[in-house]
């Protein structure tokens, strides 16, 4: 494992981690599909193509440095999302309409 160490001293197969997002078809949102290690963005894109899109799984790929992703904390799921809990009036079912009228 001593070969190929980059100048910054990181181990040879442990280049920066990139998260891969794939757009399955035009018009669809990008979805997270996994990650790759790569020296730079260009190589990350090529690796992502070879690892996650060998069968035309997508029309477009994004790679994002994993360190750039900020996530909410699973432990805080209750308090974090609770502002939405008591707002039934944000849903159409909350509203009564005269019987027999087709609203949509």
């Amino acid at each position, binding site marked *: *494992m001593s*070969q*190929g160490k*980059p*100048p910054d001293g990181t*181990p*040879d*197969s*442990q*280049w920066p*981690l990139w998260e891969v997002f794939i757009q399955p078809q035009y018009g669809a949102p990008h979805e997270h*599909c*996994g*990650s*790759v*290690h790569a*020296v*730079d963005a*260009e*190589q990350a894109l090529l690796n992502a193509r*070879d*690892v996650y899109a*060998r*069968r035309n799984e997508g029309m477009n790929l994004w790679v994002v440095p994993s360190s750039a992703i900020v*996530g909410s*904390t*699973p*432990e805080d799921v209750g308090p974090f999302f609770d502002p939405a809990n008591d707002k039934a009036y944000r849903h159409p079912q909350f509203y009564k309409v005269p019987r027999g009228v087709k609203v949509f």
Partner: protein
Amino acid sequence: MQTPHTDDPARVAAFEARIARGEVIEPKDWMPDRYRKQLVRMMSQHAHSEIVGMLPEGNWITRAPSLRRKMSLLAKVQDEAGHGLYIYCGTETLGVDRHELVGDLLSGKAKYSSIFNYPTLTWADVGVIGWFVDGAAIVNQTMLAKASYGPYARAMVRICKEENFHKRQGYESVATLARGTPGQRAMVQDAVNRWWWPSLMMFGPNDKDSPNSAELTRWGVKKKGNDELRQRFVNLTVPQAQAVHLTLPDPALKYNEASGNWEFGQIDWDEFWTVVKGDGPCNRERLAARRKAHEEGAWVRAAAEAHAAKQRASTVAAA
């Protein structure tokens, strides 16, 4: 990682309640130390198996009998590399680095599926591997696609989609040889004879002899026991063998009307443990091949780094 060595019983209970409700555990969720360790062990062994699994078949790429077979085999072996990468990436979400895992493989510390320590003696072996080994992998991985750990389950879903091609190309090749010349028939029957029992061993020891399995089942990583999966594989495979008039090398094989199962004979567990412990026909050869590939790839990694450094420098200069 940050998890203390003895886990808070209240948190463990809450975790087990989540598992019982069928919830999926994600990387940042709290999990017992043991769950994390068992997953790292199981997932990294699985990833190593995909990578080492490229070797027995890779041997035959240059000797494939037609361009069509060569293209299929290349694509299949490349898929296995992909499978290894999906699972390494899933394992890294548990707080380990891939280079540590690769290091454990190359040093001989880590285990991988013992099936890949058998030699591929003839072209027929390649077809039989697709049929049996990938067939067995599908049975196992279909179960794991419902595992309680999200990144593992998602990798399995992706892998299962690709494995179907692996199995079909193998079975097609076997069926072709089975209706070929007497020489081709004999060659494929011989490959079947050699690969059948090691394929049954792929499911691991009997449940009663598999402590890891019990723990993984309790935490919803495994949803079915080794014996149940093995039986499922046998039930699927026997009719496929009959359809191409090949014999499975087990005189005890017989259909049980009442259970609907194909009952089979004794597995040679001594052979299994010999191979697991490192003394199978090809253990040393496989590790040597992996080490050689890793060392010979060093210049490619160095070149990629040099290129990236040059790009960075020219961006800075331009700015």
